[in-house]
């Protein structure tokens, strides 16, 4: 299994290199980060030349990519070439953005999977009951909803709820513009109020969509195990139905969902972008859009490395976990 994991990771290295090269060329050739400077009146050719030289923009694109790649192998993530934040250290910016998004996504995903699994199992055990119909309709509806619309609706009514709180003489509770700079402070009660107020709306909007997929998935995998021969045997032996459901069926029905969770986790970092935009979080989504708009390939490389490594590693984990949980699947 370790050999398999190592081989998989080694195979993904050339894929990663080709991916970074393609994205670097695309972003670098799509526009000029100094374009804004050039269009300003009264800027001499010399100023531009100096700016270009200090950012390394005077070199050909392929040389710039090569420099970035070699630097990266030595642990140097490089610096931004965009004007506003020129020479900002990529590693610091990207890790900051990563933690912002991570805090948001982790909570939302855990809530989504716990809720989705509970509802999926219940819907499967009581198949075609009213509960099943309601859960299925809700899941289909959430499934078909654009996440940004959910976020917009939550944000707008959140603001109205805040106004209502102010009207009855309380403080605003919900925050719709990202977490405060420099963390939370004040008494314990204040910290809890601010923390929940900051997280609740974006968490809800990510959670609602993910939860729909998990509950559908859990329901169908639970149905499959409930109808399998060994569950019928367990029932025929006279075991209590809760024991059959939890000890025999549920454990095996968990396998596909675990895999889905691992597979999803990497891509969710890229997917939180819309929620972050609506709620004004300065996370990975914001960073991606900003680096593309500013023609900043070096910053984008930092983003790409983190997301790509997450995708690769979590895909590998999904496969390994699958092989571990279900011994019939041989890995190698």
């Amino acid at each position, binding site marked *: 299994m370790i050999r398999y994991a190592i081989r998989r990771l080694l195979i993904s290295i050339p894929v990663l290199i080709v991916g970074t090269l393609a994205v670097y060329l695309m*972003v670098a050739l799509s526009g000029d980060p100094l374009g804004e400077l050039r269009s300003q009146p009264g800027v001499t050719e010399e100023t531009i030349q100096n700016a270009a030289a200090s950012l390394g923009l005077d070199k050909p694109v392929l040389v710039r990519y090569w420099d970035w790649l070699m630097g990266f192998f030595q642990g140097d993530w490089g610096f931004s070439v965009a004007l506003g934040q020129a020479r900002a250290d990529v590693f610091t910016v990207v890790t900051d953005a990563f933690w912002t998004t991570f805090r948001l996504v982790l909570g939302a995903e855990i809530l989504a999977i716990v809720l989705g699994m509970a509802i999926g199992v219940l819907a499967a055990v009581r198949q075609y009951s009213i509960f099943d119909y309601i859960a299925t309709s809700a899941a289909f509806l959430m499934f078909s909803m*654009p996440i940004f619309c959910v976020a917009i609706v939550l944000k707008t009514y959140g603001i109205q709820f805040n106004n209502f709180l102010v009207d009855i003489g309380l403080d605003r509770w919900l925050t719709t513009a990202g977490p405060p700079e420099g963390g939370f402070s004040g008494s314990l009660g204040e910290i809890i109020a601010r923390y929940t107020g900051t997280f609740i709306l974006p968490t809800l909007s990510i959670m609602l969509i993910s939860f729909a997929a998990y509950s*559908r998935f859990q329901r169908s995998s639970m149905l499959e195990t409930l109808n399998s021969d060994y569950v019928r045997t367990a029932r025929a032996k006279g075991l209590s139905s809760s024991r059959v459901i939890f000890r025999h069926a549920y454990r095996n029905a968990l396998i596909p969902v675990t895999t889905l969770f691992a597979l999803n986790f990497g891509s969710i970092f890229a997917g939180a972008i819309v929620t972050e935009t609506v709620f004004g979080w300065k996370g990975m989504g914001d960073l991606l859009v900003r680096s593309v708009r500013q023609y900043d390939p070096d910053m984008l490389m930092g983003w790409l490395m983190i997301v790509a490594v997450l995708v690769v590693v979590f895909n590998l984990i999904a496969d390994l976990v699958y092989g571990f949980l279900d011994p019939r699947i041989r890995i190698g």
Partner: protein
Amino acid sequence: MADLPTPPRSDVAAATTGAGGDPSQHQEFDTVKARTQAQTVLRRFLRHRLAMISASVLLLIVLVAVFLPLFWPHQYGNTDAAGYLPPGTDHPLGTDQLGRDMVAQLLRGTQLSLLIAFVVAIGATAIGVTLGALAGYLKGFTDGLVMRLADLMLIIPQIAVAAILVKSAQGSWWVVAVVLAVFFWMQIARITRGETLSLSEREFIEAARASGATTSRVIFRHLVPNMIGSITVNATLVIAQAVLVEAALSFLGLGVQAPDTSLGLIINETYAQLSTRPWLFFAPFVTIVLISLTINFIGDGLRDAFDPRQTKVRA
């Protein structure tokens, strides 16, 4: 994924008993006719009540989006009226900030969103089926290459590509469609590859190869017809996803660009008015949800219709 209101039924009975035990179906006991696979699938689909309702709703949306603009008094993108007119007889959904008639905007947005979604589904399915079948049939080097290409597409951020191409192409709808198609084929390729791997071991493929069939003939005449079920179901699901992703891209300003419009772009332009003029936001929002919901239900019905081992359990 299972469906909503259809009661349990088994495949053996599917030819004789209608869903819900409709008594008028019992006469089929008298005659036994051979049916082609397509006929069987069509019959099962027509009996899937929710899928049929969804198909009718979707057809209605398509017809309205295609034909109503021909008779509608206002043109999309036309800024003749005053801004933010409330809904009235002349403008049933009012006008937006620039004085564009919302119904006309909505019709054009629906047209483009549907058009993009269908083109994406066709394009992604064509790429995915071809590459997946090649990988599964030829194995070896081709297989490795296709699968690495799929891995590559998974790590390249779609938004970066969309932003760059759409900006340089001034947001014409087909660029958005191409960008999406290029990012949507991997799932279909995986499924096609898997099915091809198991089908290639079967005797009829060996027979075809022994009688001198070329690779393309084996793939398109022998393999693809045998996987048409999962291909169709997945193509349907791609349409539903593409509607949502196109809306998200346009909402971020990286999809269709003004003066043309799509449902996501309309939401981008009107969502700030949600608390004061909610109809401006809810009209495109409900349209997106309706389209994607009906397509999901149709996909579900198709899955049930194509599954020959249809039992109580549907994965």
